[in-house]
């Protein structure tokens, strides 16, 4: 009997009130998406493994739950939903552009459960397809801000980066594939020291050397863009900076700039994103709640070339961020009860404490 009750690793179940809280959060997100005219898509949980392999590359492939179907084809539980959106959009050429689509559902990845990472988790997100202009990016970020605010999370920070900033540097310095990959990994860990060690053997000018070492520190407020502009000469990176400045300044005008930061060292998932990249952090959670960016080459992999930008958030992580404050509050109330009880006992009264169930 005991054995039958064992849960599989990396999965959870939710009971009331958590299950109800999750449903309410999800409804807040859906209402926001609906309000911005995003159309809801319901997508299959199972698809051919090849779709995900082509879209996401080897990093996700290793973490995929794949299995052989009755007809011998290789299938997988979806490790990502955007891939399925891309596939559906590519298949239907009659749609008017731009397309605004939203979704939510379970995603499966075989990872070691740790820091907010389960093997089955729930994602909600939007994709704006068919526009490559900054307003599309601004819209998607505003949808994100509004969705999280409606769900009750206001203390969020969204660092903005751009894939082309780093790509431009690797290209202009002619670093080659291997050195580029090594540097990317170091920048991803903001490892200034490791960068200094790795590039010490490279034959590049001192100014470029200093710049590469400083790259992990090109993160912070708007002035980071100005600092970078002074030292970066290649066209690709400069265009990326211009684009980020345009977006940031629009947020300033809208009065929401305090929610955003710049992180020019955001280089994770560079194989997937082609422009803007962002992560969403809450002030009380040690890992990101979600993220997104521009992916202009994904849909083309399924046969229709369309620019796109989107984001997804993890429902479990969003819930954790929202609920983290609650226990502290509860214990403060209990402390107050103890104080009152102590005072009463000092008056020789007999006190019986009840702690709920």
């Amino acid at each position, binding site marked *: 009997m005991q054995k039958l009750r064992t849960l599989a690793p990396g999965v959870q179940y939710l009971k009331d009130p958590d299950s109800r809280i999750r449903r309410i959060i999800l409804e807040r997100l859906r209402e926001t998406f609906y309000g911005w005219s995003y159309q809801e898509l319901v997508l299959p949980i199972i698809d051919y493994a090849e779709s995900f392999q082509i879209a996401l590359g080897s990093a996700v492939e290793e973490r995929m739950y794949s299995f052989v179907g009755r007809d011998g084809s290789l299938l997988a539980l979806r490790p990502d939903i955007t891939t399925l959106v891309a596939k559906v959009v590519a298949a239907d050429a009659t749609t008017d552009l731009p397309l605004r689509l939203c979704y939510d559902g379970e995603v499966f990845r075989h990872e070691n459960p*740790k*820091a907010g990472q389960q093997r089955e988790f729930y994602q909600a997100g939007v994709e704006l397809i068919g526009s490559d202009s900054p307003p599309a990016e601004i819209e998607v970020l505003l949808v994100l801000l509004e969705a999280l605010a409606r769900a009750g999370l206001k203390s969020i920070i969204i660092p903005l980066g751009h894939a082309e900033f780093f790509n431009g540097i690797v290209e202009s310095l002619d670093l080659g594939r291997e050195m580029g990959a090594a540097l990317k990994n170091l920048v991803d860990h903001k*490892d*200034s020291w490791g960068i200094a060690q790795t590039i010490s053997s490279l034959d590049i000018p001192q100014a470029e050397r200093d710049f590469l070492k400083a790259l992990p520190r090109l*993160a912070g407020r708007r002035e980071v863009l100005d600092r970078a502009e002074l030292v970066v000469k290649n066209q690709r990176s400069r265009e990326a900076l211009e684009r980020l400045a345009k977006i940031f300044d629009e947020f300033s005008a809208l009065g929401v700039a305090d929610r955003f930061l710049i992180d020019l060292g955001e280089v994770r998932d560079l194989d997937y994103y082609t422009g803007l990249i962002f992560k969403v952090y*809450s002030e009380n*959670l*040690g*890992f990101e709640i979600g993220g997104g960016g521009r992916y202009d080459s994904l849909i083309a992999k399924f046969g229709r070339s369309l620019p796109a930008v989107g984001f997804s958030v993890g429902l479990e992580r969003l819930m954790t961020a929202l609920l983290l404050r609650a226990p502290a509050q509860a214990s403060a109330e209990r402390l107050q009860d103890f104080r009152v009880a102590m005072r009463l006992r000092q008056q020789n009264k007999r006190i019986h404490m009840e702690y709920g169930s």
Partner: protein
Amino acid sequence: MIVMALPKGRILDESLSFLAGCRMQVPRDIGATRKLQVSSDDGSYRFVLVKPMDLPTYVEYGVADAGICGTDVLREFLPDVHQPLDLQFGRCRMVVAGLSRISARPSARVATRYPRIAEQFFRERGEAVEVIPLSGSVELAPALGLAERIVDLVETGNTLRENGLVIVEEIMQCTARLIINRASFHTKQGEISRLLDSMEKQLL
């Protein structure tokens, strides 16, 4: 306020003098007291003392914003954290060691507190070994016949000698690194930036 995790044991003293050098007001008795949490005099830092092997977990989950951690522990646990600086202290070597007398029948067993590092090291060389994870007193294993060789940290080599062991080969050099939680890096951007500035200055 920044919560900084410090490793108990081998590199604690050096960590404390490094932090003092960075003009951080670390309470002087932190190493001596049994308290595991202490705030700096100006209240801008809270220091928590944790086991070295647990330290990356505290930082990865963000309950500590930053920490000082040996590269041995980072290589073993591969936490997803930022690691901006090498702090240039806590130097030691990760080595393979074995009994000095030559064994008639070489065994494939290796005892270690670093199973991932050991496993990877031998596998990359195409050598099939059986890694036996232990949590301490690894030097005892060869003398007791649990394993022929061990993978462990060496500073002076005294402990190895006292247990009749010699260094067979070196796996890596280790030092202390500053690690930072990926969310804190942004959500506490101003404070983290000042922390990095003062440490970089001290390292020059």
